[in-house]
């Protein structure tokens, strides 16, 4: 850490991890409600569990991205953050808005929440990931504006690296792409069409730029590779992202009422969307091979190298499996989609967040790296979480395939609930793997409480005597 104002990243990172914990608790409840439909009903209907789970995911990722921005932008610009105080106030506003919104979900019936918060004036509620009441949505815009103002002013007064331009540009994109949340036409087909501007526009467009920038920063710092090389790679990767991903949005337009030409356009372009993820893997390993130093933070290096791999599996491979129109005809809106959603969100955005946290938190706590034993705990947590998430993905894939065969094809297709009954074994596996994930998360969080820092002298002595 080179500038004292980078310290404002710390509350963002801590809150991100706390909200991550909450997300997983709701995920486990939702998974149990799949198996026992009366569990916690009617106090916590499945849809409320689910919106808590998915909204906590989005909020903790945004927390981590903002923390990352407040950490990276000053260091890249080689100047203090424009206003650390504003960043801190913004943090508390965001956290309070998130807590109030969650309380609203849990304690007020959804339709009443809509009535209380002026949804009738400007309808925005009742869409996936965008369940928040109007005041929360406005709050999100204000928080984003505050972040953008702060980092842009920092950029203006400091050094303008390509990496910083990509990061700040993609944060602007993130905020702009949220604005269609206020556009919810009566025509359901137009509403779906526009909903994907946000969801697809984020995860298969703008956020991939953030992903690239964060990984690029970590790799520059940890490998000491020349920034020119890193930044050139980044431009190629994000060029591929947008050149495939913009028309690739058509893979959501096959079966919702949009014109039929999207079947061709969406299939062709989205089939190329794995390319930027593959390039990201190549990039990370090339940087590793060309490294000019051995960084003592082995845990952060593990996160940073694994992120592109798991992102490629979840987004590139699992996304590809359901992206061609003839396949999606059978898998659309099944747990196959959820399988892909889980591994992609985890592999790309959760893992890159945990990567930057792993790299920056020790520095924010005044040490270059954590003690080897703390790192061992962190890496154990890493392996348990990654392994569990792969099992979750495989289980949901199994469930999706059963639906495709029993409910979506054949001469005597079975009804939805009957097929769900036949998939119980997969939902049990998902739940147990979820418990595994939860234990991995506990191990990971535990690593933060193991004191001590990386001690070069004693490590060197040990290495020599071994």
């Amino acid at each position: 850490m080179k500038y004292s104002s980078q310290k404002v990243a710390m509350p963002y990172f801590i809150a991100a991890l706390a909200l991550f914990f909450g997300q997983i608790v709701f995920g486990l409840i939702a998974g149990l409600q799949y198996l026992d439909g009366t569990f916690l009903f009617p106090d916590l209907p499945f849809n409320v569990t689910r919106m808590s789970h998915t909204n906590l995911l989005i909020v903790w990722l945004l927390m981590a991205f903002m923390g990352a921005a407040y950490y990276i932008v000053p260091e890249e610009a080689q100047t203090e953050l424009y206003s650390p105080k504003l960043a801190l106030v913004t943090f508390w506003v965001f956290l309070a808005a998130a807590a109030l919104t969650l309380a609203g979900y849990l304690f007020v019936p959804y339709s009443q929440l809509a009535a209380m918060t002026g949804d009738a004036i400007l309808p925005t509620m009742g869409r996936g990931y965008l369940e928040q009441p109007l005041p929360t949505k406005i709050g999100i815009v204000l928080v984003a504006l505050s972040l953008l103002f702060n980092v842009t002013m920092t950029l203006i007064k400091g050094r303008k690296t390509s990496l910083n331009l990509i990061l700040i540009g993609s944060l602007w994109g993130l905020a702009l792409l949220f604005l269609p949340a206020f556009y919810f036409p009566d025509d359901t087909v137009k509403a779906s069409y526009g909903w994907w501007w946000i969801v697809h526009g984020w995860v298969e467009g703008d956020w991939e730029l953030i992903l690239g920038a964060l990984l690029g920063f970590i790799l520059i710092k940890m490998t000491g590779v020349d920034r020119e090389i890193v930044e050139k790679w980044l431009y190629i990767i994000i060029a591929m992202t947008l050149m495939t991903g913009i028309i690739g949005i058509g893979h959501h337009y096959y079966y919702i009422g949009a014109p039929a030409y999207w079947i061709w356009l969406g299939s062709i372009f989205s089939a190329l969307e794995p390319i930027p993820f593959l390039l990201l893997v190549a990039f990370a390993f090339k940087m590793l091979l060309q490294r000019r130093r051995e960084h003592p933070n082995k845990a952060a290096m593990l996160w940073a190298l694994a992120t592109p791999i798991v992102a490629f599996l979840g987004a590139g491979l699992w996304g590809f499996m359901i992206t061609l129109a003839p396949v999606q005809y059978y898998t659309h809106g099944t747990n196959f989609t959820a399988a892909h959603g889980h591994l992609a969100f985890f592999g790309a955005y959760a893992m890159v967040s945990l990567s930057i946290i792993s790299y920056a938190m020790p520095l924010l706590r005044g040490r270059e790296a954590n003690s080897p034993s703390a790192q061992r705990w962190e890496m154990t947590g890493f392996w348990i979480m990654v392994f569990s998430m792969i099992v979750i993905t495989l289980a949901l894939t199994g469930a999706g395939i059963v639906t495709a065969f029993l409910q979506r094809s054949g001469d005597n297709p079975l009804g939805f609930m009957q097929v769900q009954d036949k998939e119980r074994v997969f939902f049990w596996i998902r739940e147990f793997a979820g418990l595994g994930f939860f234990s991995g998360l506990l191990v990971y969080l535990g690593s933060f409480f193991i004191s001590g820092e990386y001690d070069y002298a004693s490590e060197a002595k040990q290495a020599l005597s071994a």
Partner: protein
Amino acid sequence: MQQVFTKSMARNIFLGGAAFFLIIYLVLTYDSWQQIPKRDHADQMTPAVIAGKYLVDTHDCIGCHTINGEGSYYAPELGNVYKRRGGAFIEAWIRAQPTGVAGRRQMPQFNFTQSQLDDIVAYLKWLSNIDTNNWPPNIQG
């Protein structure tokens, strides 16, 4: 002399490529906007359909169900439920919730009035007539 691929060339490909495909997308979206009202029979979106849609949104039906494959995977597809079950069944079903069958997935009681139920059915009927390129593959959704 070896031609070097520079960072600024990479940046120009990024900016040019993004702008090019964005423009194509905008043109296609303009065209889609002309076609969607025909494919979904927007002229049949009566006040009842619009009121029904608002009830479906504000009760978060897609927090458990899918509509044309979008939403959650916990409960049956609603895009074609009108064709699968018919209006009378749907009204009776919504009124009868929750089933309370031990362990079975539950749908809440929303206490809709008769006219609200009529609106919801009108919306579900409108949904079932959208041209979705023949999706879902069969009546089970």
